[in-house]
């Protein structure tokens, strides 16, 4: 059953991601991103990390994508178009594909990947908290500070300039 679930969820994630890229309308792209997030959350659940799945939906889908939607609708842009397929783009595409294939191949063939999952209990919030507040205490503090800075930055950046505006 896990396998079927995996198949469905992964197809969902990848297909909607593809649609994000391919859709001309920005709002549609945001919606498809949302669906992709749902699929990803499901994959997290499959990986025995339900807490993370919840957090993903809460933060990403609830806050980030919502923010995206606000901004898209605020800016009232015209429907976009695709960049023309110049030779450079094709070359870049091939390079990207090559990189991808290279990465996967090297990973699969050379890395000693643990294939069988052990019977690990599903981690609860308590274990996450333990880790966060002992081993990863410093990153937590730093991230808190960074959030403060981000807040300040956003406030400063979104101020309206009453004085003379620079010409574009």
């Amino acid at each position, binding site marked *: 059953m896990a396998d079927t679930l995996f198949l469905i969820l992964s197809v969902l994630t990848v297909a909607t991601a593809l649609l994000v890229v391919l859709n001309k309308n920005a709002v549609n792209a945001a919606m498809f991103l949302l669906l992709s997030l749902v699929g990803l959350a499901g994959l997290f659940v499959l990986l025995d*990390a339900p807490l993370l799945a919840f957090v993903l939906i809460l933060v*990403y889908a609830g806050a980030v994508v919502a923010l995206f939607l606000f901004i898209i609708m605020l800016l009232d842009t015209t429907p976009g178009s695709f*960049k023309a397929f110049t030779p450079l783009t094709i070359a870049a595409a091939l390079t990207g*594909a090559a990189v991808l294939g290279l990465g996967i191949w090297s990973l699969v063939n050379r890395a000693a990947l643990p294939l069988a999952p052990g019977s690990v209990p599903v981690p609860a919030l308590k274990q996450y908290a333990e880790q966060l507040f002992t081993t990863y205490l410093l990153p937590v503090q730093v991230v808190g500070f960074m959030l403060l800075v981000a807040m300040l930055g956003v406030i400063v950046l979104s101020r309206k300039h009453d004085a003379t505006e620079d010409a574009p």
Partner: protein
Amino acid sequence: MIPLLATAPVYGLPSYLFVSALLFAIGFFGVLLRKNTLVIYMCLELMLLASTLALVAFSRFNGTLDGSVFVFFILTIAAAEVAVGLAIIVALFRQRHTVSVEELNQLKH
């Protein structure tokens, strides 16, 4: 909750990693191909998501918690980054009245 992968699965770690890589590649091509800055930004987020998937997969299959904890950080940073980035884009829109990347090229030599 029931550990869903307690039984030996057909789709192991390589598959998850493959999905992650695929997501990453799609996000990357989105950055390359789209002209709307906001959509480019969304594809950036896709790439981040791909990396979180890889992290959680590794964390699960190695039996440790480090990868999952790291995902917390990634989520936080992604949120902050989106906030700041969108603020920049809005400010830029106020100046240039466009979000098309091709028209935002004043930094050329």
